[in-house]
């Protein structure tokens, strides 16, 4: 794996966004060759992505990890440096039974925080439908769509405090495919604040890509920021492969990038952190030079 350690959330988000940008542009997508991107979601929070007086991002609350990265990607599109015209996206998960236009649905999250700001065509976006009549059929169809698109080039994801990827809660099979999962009580409690604190309103099930589904991607990038994720990161990369910490499965993937901030490394061995920080000179070459589609036009 590559472990990329940046000082703060904002820098980690930016590094991740630059990496995605370079990967898309170097892939040189076109009408016959789409870049397939797997995407994570988060939840809306008050003051999300806010900066404090020093200009640094505030301590991140749970659920909003990918927001900074999306904001940078939108910026690159608006500056004319990146286009999503030939990008196909596959989101990791969606709640079951939540109306698609509910403010907390992952459809709403993706529309408001990403899709509406860029030039992606709606037909190239894929999000699981939590209101499908036959949920397992919807999941199977999603797997087929990924296959039909030629597999995922780069799957971007996050990690839960319990080490889960997408909604693959502890105990999920490490070779699982897209399916319906019942949410852990921890997750439901954590989500209650987005539903006016009413536990009865919180979805208890979700559709999620499996660990195996993400493992099939040609490359995986995991964003991990904040001290509350530190223990999960430790379990994921310094301990063994274990279905209780499903992100650990990626130790067996040939191309994984973990992008973190300092706080997320708090539970790692000093030796690990020093080793990877030392490699930043090399790893930064992945984002510098930073490519732009403007160069291609000249």
């Amino acid at each position: 794996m590559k472990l990329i350690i940046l000082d703060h959330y904002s820098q980690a988000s930016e590094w991740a966004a630059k990496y995605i940008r370079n990967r898309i542009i170097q892939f040189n997508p076109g009408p016959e060759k789409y870049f397939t991107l797997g995407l994570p979601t988060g939840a809306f929070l008050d003051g999300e992505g806010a900066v404090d007086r020093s200009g640094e991002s505030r301590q991140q609350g749970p659920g909003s990890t990918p927001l900074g990265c999306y904001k940078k990607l939108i910026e690159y599109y608006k500056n004319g440096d990146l286009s999503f015209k030939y990008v196909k996206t596959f989101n990791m998960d969606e709640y079951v039974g939540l109306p698609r236009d509910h403010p907390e649905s992952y459809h709403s999250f993706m529309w408001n925080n990403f899709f509406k700001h860029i030039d992606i065509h709606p037909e190239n976006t894929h999000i699981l439908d939590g209101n499908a009549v036959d949920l397992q059929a919807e999941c199977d169809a999603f797997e087929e769509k990924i296959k039909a698109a030629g597999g995922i080039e780069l799957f971007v994801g996050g990690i839960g405090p319990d080490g889960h990827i997408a909604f693959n809660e502890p105990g999920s099979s490490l070779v699982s495919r897209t399916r319906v999962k019942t949410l852990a009580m921890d997750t439901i409690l954590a989500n209650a604040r987005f539903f006016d604190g009413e536990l009865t309103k919180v979805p208890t099930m979700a559709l999620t890509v499996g660990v195996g589904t993400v493992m099939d991607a040609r490359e995986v990038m995991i964003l991990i920021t904040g001290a509350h994720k530190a223990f999960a990161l430790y379990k994921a990369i310094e301990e063994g492969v274990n279905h209780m910490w499903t992100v650990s499965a990626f130790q067996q993937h040939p191309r994984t990038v973990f992008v973190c901030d300092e706080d997320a490394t708090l539970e790692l061995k000093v030796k690990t952190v020093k080793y990877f920080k030392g490699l930043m000179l090399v790893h930064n070459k992945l984002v510098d030079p930073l490519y732009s589609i403007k160069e291609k036009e000249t």
Partner: protein
Amino acid sequence: MRGGQGAAEARVLQFTNCRILRGGKLLREDLWVRGGRILDPEKLFFEERRVADERRDCGGRILAPGFIDVQINGGFGVDFSQATEDVGSGVALVARRILSHGVTSFCPTLVTSPPEVYHKVVPQIPVKSGGPHGAGVLGLHLEGPFISREKRGAHPEAHLRSFEANAFQDLLATYGPLDNVRIVTLAPELGHSHEVIRELTTRGICVSLGHSVADLRAAEDAVWSGATFITHLFNAMLPFHHRDPGIVGLLTSDRLPAGRCIFYGMIADGTHTNPAALRIAHRAHPQGLVLVTDAIPALGLGNGRHTLGQQEVEVDGLTAYVAGTKTLSGSIAPMDVCVRHFLQATDFVVLDDSLHVQATYISGELVWQAEAARQ
């Protein structure tokens, strides 16, 4: 009233780089329109899987809902209360000219007039959708003649009326058929007013309280009978008094039907109401505030003598008086001037600078554009 045929095949128009009003705030959001109706772009994206057919860059400007003027007596030489042979073309002229003030719908207002005038004029002003030809007519506003003598303002005393025993029949006899009528201003202290208010309300006509010496209790009772609006708050009513707030007290009354919001017109032309009074009303009850022009035929013309119904009016700058008196007689401030005055008075944080109307759209179609904006 809007005849937007939102066929799924119609072109989708996306206004970008603009600020729109949502939830009482100005947000940087795009506005999507199709077939004359505002669209939910999220639904379009996920359900229809469509993008915009055309994008229009608004240059960072504010995209405001079209202004609706519910009290306008005429303009540009046209007097809605005159029983001319071709009332329709007068209304059409005003409708076209107020587009440049950002007004997209209005209620042509008739001041106190003799019954012959109503019988001749009212049937000639039907409800009409707006478009490139002009702002839409939402229905007539009949201000008077069932108002208070003491608070008649510029309305002619000779034509004031009160309700007799057959109150509603009286009203019908005076106005004629009410098909084109949308608002009636009356004084609730007049006898039998409650049956009239109830009748009008059941017919879907908005009853507005104004030109009245009603106390708060009488005003509250009128609201219980169905009244929902106050005509030009502060003007032509008893002033606010701490032991009897009068009609003004409706803004904070706790004796109104549950869930009912009382709306009130205010003329923010810099003359009719002191900015401090505007602020008091706004702070007391911001959700009910409606800006009106109460514009008179002299709107858009210069200083000098003009008519308003049966009266002569003298215009000087932005003020108009009944000729030879100090009685205010309507206003000549266009709606967008009123909006700017109001903002200055209430000190909003306005992201844009000047709030000058650059372009007016009706049903997604450009119907007026400022010279500078024309390319």
